[in-house]
């Protein structure tokens, strides 16, 4: 198929994705390092390249509120944020999911303050893992664009109907230029069917959404969200396959696997950190070590079944860039839940934007040969 490769920063890839996926309404508020997304969308709207109604709201909480309300009238919406902006939206994240309004959003991962920290770790999005949003993590500018296309398709799937956040590393990817093959509009239009809402505000059929709900009924609504999540692994697998056939690229489905079949050790991570881990796996394979990488692409729902399949009988080292204070590395904790009988180590690395090199991953893998790494926190000794 025809190629249209441009050198784009991660944030520019997002604006291309927005152009292609055509949300009818975008409501967003700037925050470093997401700012250039907002700027590029605004510029695109101004020039006519991007056809969307862009609301310059006065806060991120309002951004999500505006998207939810617009989506409720039956149209596709989109926003982008980072760190404190995401946290400010927290109440509304829950709202979008409980209302079954599949708002799609980019979250540019950035550490949380105080002190002010504009560099990358994943505590912002991972701390929102309970809000009922599907969470996907990209590791390259190409994947950001492709992941958006997948996200709209996944979130709007009638069996899913849940909002999706596409997360990627602040500065490491958002402001790094990489080659991005921009797909044709016609292909994207075919891949993402028009949005068919579960319900909408319509004067032809007046309903009330969200009034006081008795506990028994609420329980069913909550359970229904879980059912939506339960459909994701199968549907994501189908989407990844169809994406590969349509666009000629395969980033993996729920998990991006590298050299896992004959590996005796699996290194688990997400995002650009996951790409770094893959790099380290490449180095270690050259020296004859049988390691594999499982880069989790869809973190919510947590890919329990697939991770179990990949890691069965193998040693696992989880590299976390987010920590749940009081228990430990977030992916580590959840991996231990998913695979209680496997030998799992956990490393906490890159917190607050500390640089992570492939050599460090190699060193830590070797360290795990000699000692148990149980929430081993890098950079504190």
């Amino acid at each position, binding site marked *: 198929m025809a190629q249209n490769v441009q050198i784009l920063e991660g944030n520019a890839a997002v604006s291309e994705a927005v152009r292609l996926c055509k949300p009818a309404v975008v409501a967003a508020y700037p925050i470093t390092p997401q700012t250039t997304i907002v700027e590029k969308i605004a510029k695109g709207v101004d020039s006519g390249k991007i056809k969307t109604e862009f609301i310059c709201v006065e806060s991120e909480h309002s951004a999500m509120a505006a998207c939810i309300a617009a989506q409720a009238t*039956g149209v596709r919406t989109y926003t982008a944020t980072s760190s404190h902006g995401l946290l400010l939206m927290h109440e509304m994240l829950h709202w979008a999911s409980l209302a079954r309004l599949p708002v799609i959003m980019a979250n540019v991962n950035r550490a949380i303050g105080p002190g002010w920290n504009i560099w990358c770790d994943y505590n912002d999005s991972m701390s929102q893992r309970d809000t009922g949003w599907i969470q996907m993590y990209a590791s390259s500018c190409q994947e950001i664009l492709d992941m958006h296309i997948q996200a709209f398709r996944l979130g709007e799937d009638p069996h899913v109907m849940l909002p999706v956040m596409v997360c990627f590393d602040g500065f490491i990817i958002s402001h790094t230029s990489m080659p991005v093959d921009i797909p044709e509009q016609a292909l994207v239009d075919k891949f993402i069917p028009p949005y068919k809402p579960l319900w909408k505000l319509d004067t032809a059929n*007046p309903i009330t959404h969200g009034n006081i709900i008795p506990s028994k009924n609420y329980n069913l609504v909550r359970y229904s969200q879980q059912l939506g999540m339960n459909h994701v692994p199968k549907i994501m697998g189908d989407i990844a396959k169809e994406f590969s056939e349509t666009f000629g690229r395969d980033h993996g489905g729920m998990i991006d696997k590298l050299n896992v079949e004959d590996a005796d050790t699996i290194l688990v991570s997400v995002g650009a950190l996951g790409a770094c881990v893959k790099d380290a796996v490449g180095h270690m394979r050259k020296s004859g070590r049988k390691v594999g990488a499982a880069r989790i692409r869809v973190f919510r729902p947590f890919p329990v079944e697939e991770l179990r399949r990949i890691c069965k009988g193998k040693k696992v080292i989880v590299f976390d860039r987010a920590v749940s204070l009081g228990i430990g590395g977030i992916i580590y904790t959840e991996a231990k839940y998913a695979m209680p009988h496997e030998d799992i180590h956990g490393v906490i690395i890159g917190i607050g934007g500390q640089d992570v090199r492939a050599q460090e991953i190699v060193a830590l893998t070797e360290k795990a040969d000699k000692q148990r790494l149980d929430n081993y926190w890098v950079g504190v000794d």
Partner: protein
Amino acid sequence: MPVKTMDIPKEELIMPGSAACPGCPATVALRMVLKALGKETIMVVPACCTAVIEALHPKTSFNVPLMNVAFETAAVSASGVEAGLRVQGKENINVLAWAGDGGTYDIGIQSLSGTFERRTNILYVCYNNEMYSNTGIQRSGATPKYAWTTTTWSGKGEQKKDLVEIIIAHDPAYLATASVGYPEDIYEKALKAKGIKGPKYMEILAPCPPGWKFPMNKTLELGRMAVETGLWPLFEYENGKHNFTGVSKQLLSGAREFKPIEDYLKIQGRFGQLFSPAPNAGALTEIAKNRDEYWRRMRARVKMEEELAKQ
């Protein structure tokens, strides 16, 4: 031309048998606003009494599409609805944000300000019972000085915020104050707002029987007394000019005298401390004086506005 009661449409867009308290001013006001706007209306309602008045899932009392929204987001949610409708070519549908004073003066003021600054084409109506009524009568930025609430047991120590003035500073396309004491006036002003494009604001005084502690049959009577004492002015604001209406017009010109504030305050248990065990003369004088000062400034302001309009 004041609207005749019999010309107000018959159809009820709020079903009887809602969860409203007997004598509730919110439903008096909303009945009139919805009759003016009609069925082609979509409402957003933040946390407030009305959110409860709707009744319990899976039933609702409101016969227009209604989305309950997070407390802070009445205005911006209306903004989202407006954008969503407009991209579908459905601009003819009225978008109504209906909120209490809590969601307007306090927690919702940010998104209200942003929505108006963006010149969003919505009608925002605040039904003001001068407290957080839904959560059980706590003080709000709209609570008048000396009023008892569950968070101001000896009476509120501060004057209320003048939110209407804040909205005026946003240069609204239309602004009007009203009172449940005059339902026809609410209808008329909402009908006028319907025909105007841009950010529109209405604030309706809503005396609340359990909150203000007065007999529930006097809801409208109190709504009139607030106006007759000059403590609640009725006016419209458009194109840089105030246009006082009804009784307030007569009070402005001096054709009518203010009713004594005691008549209004005495009926309300929330001002009981001003009268018992002994009348708080200082406070009562202060209230009357502030009322007089407000009208003095307003008369000068209206005069100045007329002068400016001539130039």
